């Protein structure tokens, strides 16, 4: 007798959980999946941000950071994409890999299985060389590249990295051909550049700005649509007449099918966290170019980017 009543009550409860869950969200610990190993750039940024999101989320629930490194991020992105869309599994979906992995290979997740919630960081691409280089500025570089196609070398952090894709975009926009030399990490590019082994280095503006200010490296510009506050002197590529907007987005996503009310809650909390003065100071220390976008804006940005990368790939696949 009591059992049936109980079961009935449970069923009624289950029907109403959707609305109730969204109202009360969050009621338990939220898992934040980081597709990179601990101590890396994204991990440090995420761990810096998490306490501030906790602060602005309703209730006292905590966020647990879970590192799921492997397969250039595929393992982590797949973990997010395949989770139950209840708001308790979110994670960083970095570009370009969260978009390019499914383009490049048979992957264990699809880009449209991820729902962008909010962007946190946009680190624009940049192109650097030694200060005494022969090119002068970007126009000079393009001229030199046209005079000797395929001989000027540039280093990146690997095939299909944002550094590589931004250079592909530049070569397409300027109609030039450069010689790609992939490296294992940005400190290796820097060493090869300083040792005079390669002519150009494609790195993010946040990574090079200190060296540029110290006069150790010279930059040809930044690839954001607007100048980043941290590098107000550096012109954008668009200002110099080359329509290249490229870089790496580091934002938060969730599995698709998440309740819009929960998306709103999360997106707002992240926005408040990014606006927090204390967080902005910590971010400046790590040279993180902040660029908050809410769910709709971020979704639009990533959808555009997906179209761009797909077009680049169809034209000239960068992996054999």
């Amino acid at each position: 007798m009591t059992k049936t009543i109980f079961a009935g009550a449970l069923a009624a409860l289950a029907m109403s959980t959707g609305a109730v869950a969204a109202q009360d969200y969050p009621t338990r610990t939220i898992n934040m999946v980081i597709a990179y190993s601990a101590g890396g750039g994204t991990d440090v940024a995420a761990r810096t941000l998490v306490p501030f999101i906790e602060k602005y989320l309703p209730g006292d629930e905590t966020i647990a950071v879970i590192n799921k490194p492997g397969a250039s991020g595929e393992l982590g992105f797949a973990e997010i994409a395949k989770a139950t869309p209840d708001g308790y599994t979110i994670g960083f979906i970095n570009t370009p890999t969260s978009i390019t992995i499914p383009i490049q290979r048979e992957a264990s997740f699809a880009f449209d299985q991820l729902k962008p919630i909010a962007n946190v960081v946009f680190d624009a691409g940049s192109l650097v060389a030694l200060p005494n280089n022969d090119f002068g500025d970007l126009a000079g570089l393009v001229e030199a590249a046209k005079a000797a196609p395929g001989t000027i070398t540039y280093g990146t952090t690997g095939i299909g990295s944002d550094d590589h894709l931004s250079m592909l975009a530049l070569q397409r926009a300027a109609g030039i051909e450069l010689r790609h030399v992939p490296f294992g990490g940005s400190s290796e590019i820097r060493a090869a550049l300083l040792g005079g082994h390669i002519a150009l280095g494609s790195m993010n503006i946040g990574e090079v700005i200190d060296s540029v200010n110290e006069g150790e490296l010279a930059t040809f510009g930044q690839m954001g649509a607007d100048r980043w506050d941290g590098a107000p002197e550096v012109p954008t590529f668009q200002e110099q007449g080359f329509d290249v907007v490229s870089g790496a987005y580091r934002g938060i996503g969730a599995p698709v099918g998440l309740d819009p009310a929960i998306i709103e809650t999360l997106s707002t909390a992240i926005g408040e966290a990014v606006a927090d003065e204390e967080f902005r100071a910590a971010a400046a220390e790590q040279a993180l170019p902040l660029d908050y976008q809410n769910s709709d804006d971020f979704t639009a940005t990533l959808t555009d980017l997906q179209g761009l990368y797909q077009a680049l790939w169809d034209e000239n696949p960068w992996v054999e």
Partner: protein
Amino acid sequence: MDILTHLVDGFAAIFTPVVILAMVAGTVMGVLAGALPGLSATMGIAVLIPFTFGMEPLVALGLVAGIYNGAMYGGSIPAILLRIPGTPAGIATVFDGYPMTQQGRARLALRVSLYSSAFGSFVSALCLILLSPPLAALALKFGPSQFFWLAIFGMLCITSVLGGSLSKGLISTCAGLLMGLVGIDQITGAERYTFGSVHLVSGFSIIVVLTGLYAIPPALELAEKALRINSKDLNTGNRADDGFRMRSLLPVWLRSSVIGVIVGIMPGAGGNIAAVISWNEARRRAKEGDCYGKGDPKGVAAAECANNADTAATLIPALTLGVPGSAVAAVIMGVLLVHGLRPGPALFRDTAEITYGFMIAMGVTALMMIPIGALGSRLFINALRLPPLILAPGIIVLTSIGVYTVGNSIVEVWIMMIVGFVGYGMEKLEIPTAPAVLAIILGPMAESELRRSLLISGNDPTIFFTGVVNWIFILLIALMLALPLIRRRKARRAVTENQKVDT
């Protein structure tokens, strides 16, 4: 005066309560791991790598420094008391240590071993601090072609750890090279040997492989042998040698330290070789009244000082060039990688505070050994009575949970276990594992630097033969290749001369 500021920063960074605690704990754990027959410094650090993952880098490295130095001393405890070297490097300590025990002078032997170990480790750490920065500054100028030759040179050095059989050594090297190939190729982005598994796309995690290879086989070995030690064998004797003057060992210490440091810097050779060379050298110089091999404290001093002087010195090529010269160095590189620190010249530039802190910690833990060894001697001796049948599954539990926490992946625990079984099989077939480990690290380096150089030069191979540094490496490699031939000719001449004498 960059180096001085870095040193000061390094000192400030390690003299915090947590790091000091880590160094003390590491030294205690190291002596224990070294003392237990079957366990070694490599194994102790390999088990620990995943645990250090949640720690601050310097806390982790302080622990590692303590374990490394402590284990080298710890190995002498069973060598002296039971004639069983606790680690391979303790082998030469048996020669004079055990006879001293038979004479009832075990306590003196342990004390000599302790001071000699501390002295050797400290000198070694000094050399690390003095030699690494200039070498790293030099390496900063290296380009892909220089790194290519360096990797080839490092791999040739592997041949010196091949042991008896060349073909078995080659099998191990090739197995390591193949494991290094698994995953996405850095230069073309193509997937190799992934067999469609997403878990293999980023290749084998070096940490998982190292833990499997160095922690699982000793555990299986413990279960297989199930060595039980009788408490009555752990007698330290009652002869007090208070008249013995440690200072009289100074000449032996200085010579042995130099031998240990030189052997340590050379890739391939390990602490056991340093100890044996040093002991032989001491015996060769024996004066009247010395009784090497029959319980001379100087023999214990020569062996223990040299195997400890090997410790920090092996890290010199690993930290500055990213080329590990031994299995322990490879494991310590694993610890650095867990914390996102890429061994190589950048270590001394971008994360100087941590690197210098670690080098200083190697020296500090060397000195810490003296009070820890003196106060804890009863504990360490009694630890020999730990039942191996509990120890063996205990090690497996620690490594499993540790590896799991690094990637939150049970697949990696499986990989570690399979690698461990394979490693045990290799040991039984007498295929050395060290070449495989070094090849996993150096193989991808050689391949990608080769192809990177050719990309830079536009497929012009002369890039490998321009510049002084390239030629120095080429000459060194030629020398490495010629050495066995020269040695063989010498041996043949010696044989013919002996025959002449015979006839």
